[in-house]
């Protein structure tokens, strides 16, 4: 039983990891067929994972409503929003539009979800401006370099900047294409080496945090 609980899953990871890493180098029809089937499976499993991910919210907010904790009214709004959307979704066959005509589900999406999510992120514009004013100070040589690069790119990427200081356009292009590209490349290589190392650790059972909950 302990083997089933502990070593079993690690063995599954080891075998699937090695098989699919090797698959890349073996373009045999049988191996390609296996890749086709399993990636299709992953699409379906991905759906379950998504539901699992969002369903934890049900429990958290249901408990809040049951216990009438502070702000339970907002949890109730959340539930109403969710159940209302689900009900209208089923009623509209899961489609936002049918032959170009908006359904009730599409209405919720267009007039509630899109503006809500859009505005949630739009308010960050104000906070980035406030943060720039409060903390973007040339306290050291490095901070000064960062500040100058930021100002050049901000000038060079808008028509007014290019109009006021014509060279800012070319300068920001050079910064992005050469200086920025070299740093991003180094970061990309570094992160990729990290990803490969982590994947190898996972396959060989040295990294197990993904297995998570449940009694041993």
């Amino acid at each position: 039983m302990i083997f089933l609980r502990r070593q079993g899953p690690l063995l599954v990871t080891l075998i699937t990891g090695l098989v699919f890493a090797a698959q890349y180098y073996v373009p045999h029809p049988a191996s390609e067929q296996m890749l086709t089937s399993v990636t299709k499976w992953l699409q379906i499993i991905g759906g379950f994972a998504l539901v699992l991910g969002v369903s934890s919210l049900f429990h958290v907010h249901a408990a809040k409503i049951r216990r009438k904790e502070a702000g339970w009214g907002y949890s109730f709004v959340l539930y109403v929003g969710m159940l209302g959307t689900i009900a209208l979704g089923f009623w509209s066959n899961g489609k936002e539009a049918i032959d170009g005509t908006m359904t009730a589900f599409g209405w919720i999406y267009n007039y509630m979800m899109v503006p809500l999510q859009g505005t949630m992120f739009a308010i960050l514009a104000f906070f980035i401006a406030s943060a720039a004013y409060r903390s973007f100070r040339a306290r050291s040589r490095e901070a000064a370099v960062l500040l100058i690069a930021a100002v050049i790119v901000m000038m060079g990427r808008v028509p007014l900047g290019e109009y006021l200081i014509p060279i800012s356009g070319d300068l920001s292009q050079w910064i992005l294409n050469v200086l920025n590209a070299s740093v991003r490349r180094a970061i990309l290589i570094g992160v990729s080496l990290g990803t490969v190392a982590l994947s190898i650790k996972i396959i060989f059972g040295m990294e197990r945090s993904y297995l998570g909950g449940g009694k041993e």
Partner: protein
Amino acid sequence: MTFAERMLKIDRRIIFLVIGLCTLIPLLYPVGLPIKISPEVRGVYDHIESLPEGSVFLLSLDFDPASKPELMPQSISLLRHAFRKKLRVIALTLWVSGTGMADQVVTQVAREMGKESGKDYVFLGWSPGGTAVIINMGQDLYGAFPADYNGKPTKGLSVLQGVASLRDVNYAVSLGAGNPGVEAWYVFGKDKYKFELGGGCTGVMAPGLYPLLRSGQINGLIGGLRGAAEYEILIDQKGKAVAGMDAQSATHLAIIVLVVLCNLFYFASRNIARRQSQSGA
């Protein structure tokens, strides 16, 4: 408290108001400053221009409503360009919350250009799995998407004639707001299935994609609202991106002024503090 110190501790809502006005006023009273075309945006445009009629163009709208203002204008321009060039368009999204927007933009532009679903274009909708969807499309497009967004079986659609997998796609563009996006389409798509790839992305993502642009892994990059505005000019159909560029100019200038002021006040207050400590000693 000195003037400089007082200014450094100004109520942030005043800054909010300045930014709000700098955005609103140019939107109400646009100036229309000229916009220069960058080589990275031209890369995507030129490649679509070079494609012969009937070529297969795949557009992956990998974003959600949070990035709508940046990536929606890019989608509209690319679709207009592709339809104008009489390419066969395959559209999809890897982001669940972008499905409704993706369907809307594809349907609207197709209707505007007189294109027919199933014959000139297909919207495959969304499928979970992210990178697995890309690989599965590379292996078998019909397995990954047995039906289009409207539930019509993809097998037998005339727009997909001769297309079995991503290997048969002539040009793909991913408009990405994160992961999965342009990078995933390279790693899990182009790397093995060898189609030409271009990218479009939000401003936040753009600097990170320059290494791929430099190495030729993507042949062009449309970055943020500015990139979208450039594309609108290239296809000679100005839209929301060009309209927003004046506001973009004003807000950038406002932030630069704020940064300069903050540094002036900072150095002024530091000098005063230094002088006071010297006189105190």
